């Protein structure tokens, strides 16, 4: 129960952060990616703000070792980049550059009630689901 509450709060913080930073707005994200146009540095500042907390935070996580509410950590062990990782990042990059939505903002934007936000999410979820089928989980 406590773990669920933590998940809910973590998701809530994420959502609030995406709204306050305006990362929920694809036009803002595309402005960052458009280095040859009127460049919008917002995303770089959002990432800097996140890492300013996340880097010392994860240092603490590593020091403590075991999560407070679970018997063992589920964080992935370190590994080398492989073809699969790079191919996935390329496909993701194309989709992100075409629309300006990555998964978090696409979910946070549902509150707008805009048909296109739901359309993107449906396509993204279909892609994820299809991959799960093909990869044969």
């Amino acid at each position, binding site marked *: 129960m406590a773990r669920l509450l933590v998940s809910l709060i973590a998701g809530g913080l994420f959502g609030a*952060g995406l709204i306050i930073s305006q990362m929920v707005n694809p036009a803002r994200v595309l402005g960052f990616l458009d280095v040859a146009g009127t460049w919008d540095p917002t995303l770089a500042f959002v990432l800097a703000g996140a890492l300013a907390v996340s880097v010392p935070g994860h240092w603490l996580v590593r020091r403590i070792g075991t999560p407070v509410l679970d018997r063992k950590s589920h964080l992935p062990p370190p590994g080398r980049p492989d073809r699969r990782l790079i191919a996935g990042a390329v496909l*993701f990059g194309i989709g*992100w550059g075409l629309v300006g939505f990555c998964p978090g903002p696409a979910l946070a934007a549902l509150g707008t009630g805009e048909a296109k936000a739901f359309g993107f999410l449906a396509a993204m979820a279909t892609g994820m689901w299809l*991959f799960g089928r093909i990869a044969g989980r």
Partner: protein
Amino acid sequence: MTPFDPIPALAGGVLIGLGAVILALFNGRVAGISGILGGLLDGERANLAWRAAFIAGLVGAGFLGLKLVSPDVMIAADWPILIIGGLLVGIGTRLGSGCTSGHGVCGMARGSIRSIAATAVYISVAVATVFVTRHLIGG
């Protein structure tokens, strides 16, 4: 759209980082949205509840936040591009085991070589994609 303002950008980033840290610290989980949503869609029973709770928090906070501050949300892509983009983001993030949150905020903070490589690739490819669509064919 409002002009660039570093304060809300940094403040929003801090909240995102905080969300990622508490999930790792208390539950030992990566706050990777594509992994959480994808795992939910795979229907993995054992991890259904916490993933659903995280997504509910994210969508709920998004809903409330949009009502309170009503920022612009401009989705310029037309429908065919929107659908193609959505499919690519869905397949790509699963194939590449993460997105901006999992690799960008969590993995990079943990010093993961895989996450740093993935982030460098998806940002570069997205920059190239915007360059092609806006300046080469869009213009």
